[in-house]
């Protein structure tokens, strides 16, 4: 809990700062719109958290999102009947990409940085080859509804986010969550005490792939087909997780803080936009956050250990 507190303070400060510029922001419709916009990144960050806390990385989620949206548009091609089967197929594809990442990383012992970087390149190359940079087809109105529409005043994406968040918290409180953290903290010790490290990590990659599929459904719904929809999302998700105080290398951090990190990043982007600061600054801000968060983690770590002993 002590580790998760700082991110909530930062988030609160940013929300107040946004409200100071735009008082309307804290009214329900505007705030729900903000949550709706943040939902895909928060879900991706939750997925990324599982991989990072188990001691690995998943760099493939951004291009997986793009691939999913482009494939969905081509298969649906505006037809209402195709919507639900394709939604199911997207979830399966996400799980499958995660399975491949996990198996290659754990069984073939390729470092996950390389495995998922390779997956990123393969997926973005395949999408480019298939579309030539201009996606074909269209998403149906039914598909778009999940990212655009709402149930009464509450957007569907907010409801999906609540469910996904609850599931993520529940999973981390289960036995699986504990073994996952143990595998990330010290995989040898975990293996010796009976944790099937390879299997646990593979499942973590599959959860990340599933999160990418859900994010793709929300993003495609929000703004329609685009071959750029997922660009840079993997780094945003990793930044969000790191911002939430989750240790790169695994073993420490909470999924709630990772999701709060995603909200914080989105709030920061909103604030930059409100102040009219160019979007080109966003990657730079992310870079500073990643380096600063990891550096701060390394600095505070020995002190904490000393205090504990």
């Amino acid at each position, binding site marked *: 809990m002590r580790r998760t507190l700082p991110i909530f303070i930062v988030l609160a400060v940013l929300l107040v700062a946004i409200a100071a510029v*735009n008082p*309307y*922001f804290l009214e329900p419709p*505007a705030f729900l*719109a903000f949550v709706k*916009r943040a939902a895909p990144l928060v879900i991706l960050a939750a997925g990324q958290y599982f991989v990072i806390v188990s001691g690995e990385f998943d760099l493939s989620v951004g291009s997986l999102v793009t691939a999913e949206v482009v494939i969905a548009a081509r298969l649906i091609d505006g037809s209402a009947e195709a919507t639900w089967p394709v939604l199911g197929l997207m979830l399966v594809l996400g799980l499958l990409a995660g399975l491949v990442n996990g198996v290659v990383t754990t069984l073939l012992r390729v470092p996950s940085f390389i495995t998922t970087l390779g997956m990123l390149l393969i997926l973005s190359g395949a999408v*480019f080859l298939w579309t*030539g*940079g*201009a*996606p*074909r*087809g*269209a998403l149906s109105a039914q598909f778009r509804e999940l990212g*655009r529409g709402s149930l009464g005043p509450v957007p569907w994406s907010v409801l999906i986010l609540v469910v996904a968040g609850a599931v993520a918290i529940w999973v981390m409180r289960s036995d699986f969550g504990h073994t996952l953290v143990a595998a990330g903290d010290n995989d040898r010790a975990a293996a010796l005490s009976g944790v099937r490290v390879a299997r646990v990590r593979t499942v973590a990659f599959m959860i990340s792939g599933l999160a990418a599929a859900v994010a793709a459904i929300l*993003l495609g719904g*929000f*703004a*329609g*087909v*685009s071959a*750029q*929809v997922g*660009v840079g999302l993997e780094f945003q998700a990793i930044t969000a997780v790191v911002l939430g105080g989750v240790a790169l290398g695994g073993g420490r951090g909470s999924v709630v803080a990772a999701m709060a990190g995603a909200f914080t990043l989105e709030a920061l982007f*909103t604030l930059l*936009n*409100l*102040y*009219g*600061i*160019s*979007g*080109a*600054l966003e*990657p*730079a801000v992310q870079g500073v956050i990643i380096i600063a968060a990891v550096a701060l983690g390394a600095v505070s770590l020995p002190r904490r250990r000393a205090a504990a002993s």
Partner: protein
Amino acid sequence: MRFSSRRILVSAALAGLMAAMAACTTDSPAPSTAASPQASAAESSGSGTGAQSKFFVQTDYDAQMAMRSAQPAGPEGKPWEQTIDANLVETAKYKKDGPYHLCFSNAAVNNPWRQVGLKTMQAEVGLHKEISKFTMLDAEGKDDKQISDIAELQGKGCDALIVSPNTTATLTPAVAGACPKLPVIVFDRGVQTDCPVTFIKPIGGYAFGAEAAEFLVTKVPAGGKILALRILPGVDVLETRWSAAKIAFDKSDLDVVGVEFTDGDAAKTKSIVGDYIQRYGKIDGVWMDAGATAVAAVEAFEDAGVPVPPINGEDQEDFLQKWSDAKLTAVAPTYPTYQWRTPIIAALKVLKGEQVPKMWNLPQPTVTQENLATYLKPGMPPLHYALCGCEDLPGYPEKWGGKP
């Protein structure tokens, strides 16, 4: 136009970093920089458009404004063969007997505009029996690859070389090097040398930007709040569009409340427009420098539950469809893809020794409420460009992804 987005992103990121460093060295908070809509509203003529672009060239602007009202010469109904203000040059020295081998160095095929264009060009090649061979090399958006592509094509026995340059300045020496060896035809973006036999382009960016801005000036009541959406700063072909719009807005009573960059990203466009609707309560008009994210901008108004104000897009089918379905007050200036037919026609004219215009200015039509039905083609893919001039070509509409 169309550019290598990755390279531009990198340079934009660098520019952003520098801006950040510059901001750090002063005590003034970031909101006081010119990028802020509130701050820039106080500058210049009070219309919120900021300073004029450093890419602005008055003579080019004047020339394009004149061409907008000029009557193009050439066959009726075939705008890709028409010219405005043609200054014909002799090509007798290039005359040779067929069959011909045409070569094409293409900047990239990485966006829908270039895809539609390339398919149109290939179909045009198919029309001419005297073309025995057509060789294309795709530079994939890289200057260095295009430079070596142009060199490589010179050794392939081409009778004429068509170049669509990736960037203007960097490709100039490569084109200049090819000119003495064979007739060179340049289109879309230009080069800084007059050695090509002909340079083919639509009227240009100033005409595009002015067309959209003047539409808003007539449709939006005085004092109305305008949001201008641009893709990226610093790209010549996009800067001209904005600088012409700026002139039109500065002359008007409209209030430009924001000039924002979208990176051509639909989700970002939607978020920005949503933010502005929240902040100002009402936006009375939207100006865009390119149409790819126009539908996203329209959806932002729909999702906010407010009427869609007058807006401009481009001739992509998704926007035209939305325009028709939602009964928008809209206009669509174009940068027509039919210009991809012209280089083939020009190359054959040159090889047959017929005169061609030194500067081949193609007409640049605008889609309006009156002619919308002509350009709206429901069977075509959403990202298809209506002004492809490809309806009479063999293989239409399947080759362009349409349903028969």
